[in-house]
């Protein structure tokens, strides 16, 4: 499942500086704001992007979310990688250089 992806499990992703990611109380949701646009995220999308802090590897993110949602790790891993692929293709996130 994860061997055909361009998402690097050991990489830390961060929100691309063109985008502003934050909680929006009036929408009861996380939102991504960018030039002349808004994306309202569902709960899982918001949780995943909240871990794109430039400091958490994809592996660590999956562990944290599996614990948080009390879910099977494989299922969480599949969902996270799929979402990160979309987020990366849309330019919302980028991989931080390895330290």
């Amino acid at each position, binding site marked *: 499942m994860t061997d055909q992806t361009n998402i690097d499990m050991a990489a830390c992703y961060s929100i691309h500086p063109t985008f502003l990611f934050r909680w929006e109380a009036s929408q009861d949701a996380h939102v991504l704001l960018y030039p*002349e646009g808004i994306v309202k995220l569902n709960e899982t999308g918001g949780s995943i992007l909240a871990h794109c802090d430039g400091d958490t590897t994809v592996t660590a993110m999956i562990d944290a979310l599996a614990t948080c949602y009390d879910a099977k790790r494989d299922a969480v891993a599949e969902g996270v990688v799929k979402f990160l692929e979309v987020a990366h293709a849309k330019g919302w996130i980028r991989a931080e250089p390895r330290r």
Partner: protein
Amino acid sequence: MPRVGSVPSLDGEGKPIWVLLELTYRCPLKCVFCSNPVDFERYGEEELSTAEWKRVMREARDLGAMQIGFSGGEPTLRKDLETLVAEANELGYYTNLITSGIGLTSRRLAALKEAGLKHIQLGFQSSDRQTANWLAGVDSFDRKLAMAREIKAHGFPMVLNVPITRHNIAQIPEIIELASSLGMEYLELANVQYYNWALLNRDELLPTREELAWAEAEVAKARRRLGDTMTIFFVIPDYYEGRPKACMNGWGSIHLTIAPDGAALPCSQARTLETLDFPTVREHSLEWLWRESPTFRKYRGAEWMKEPCRSCDEREHDFGGCRCQALLLTGDAANADPACSRSPHHHVIQEAVERAQAAKAGSGTLIARQGGLASGGGGA
């Protein structure tokens, strides 16, 4: 402000999620397609104060606004721009500056960055100095180019917005090259919409069908070549679509414009609707203006619609098009937008297109934005 790319991918659920502040109608340029009211001079003395703008921003945020645009006229003519941007940023807005670049300096850009400005949209007329200066009515090309580089040097994400008419449509390949070499994230080739000054000049500005088809093909080629490095928006004018634009995502749906004098408008062109009253934030709370005012309720939803819109299966999709265009071209804002092929008034659009096909570019006279032109409220 009906523009490409300006509709957020979000249902507002009754909230004005996108608020546009027209800080002033003053501008050093004299563009022939200017979207400001033809009688813009009337409002010069009545501009809101810094404190009043701050109150507007707070009230709009409380109503659920998330995107804010600082526009005009030329917003940098307001000396309090940095103060207002800082306040907006503090309130949690995504802050956009919509500017001609004239009035910006490296020092002001640094101050705006410091204030938390997120994005700049720079208006540009052409890749060719002579054409650009002629369309803008003043020598501005070199200054704008320098500012584009300066804005990128300060690390702002940036949209280059080029209003397209028959006078610059042939330059689209060069405009794309210029935008790409400047490092733009987005290029908006915005076919001019025909209101106010642009409507006065329509016969001289509207491109032909052949010119548009050629331009679309050029844009497609450039997209293939440039890939993800730059996003190009290009939408042909609604005169050629046969379908009306989903103007503002519906009247009073997600968009709120505040004019320099504090008038609350469903879009920046709405002042052309002379049958409506536009009360200001000096007289009422923003909540009342948005939720309760007769002006915002007038064309909200579908109740106001006449035939053919009322029974049209696309009414939830395009909301009957643009109310301002319906008024300007059919005499009644509640009529279907004549850009719609189902409108009984569609012939007025077809006639304008025929005139554009017949006209030779440059054969007539363009009226530059200027003071002292009496308000006609409509096309000449």
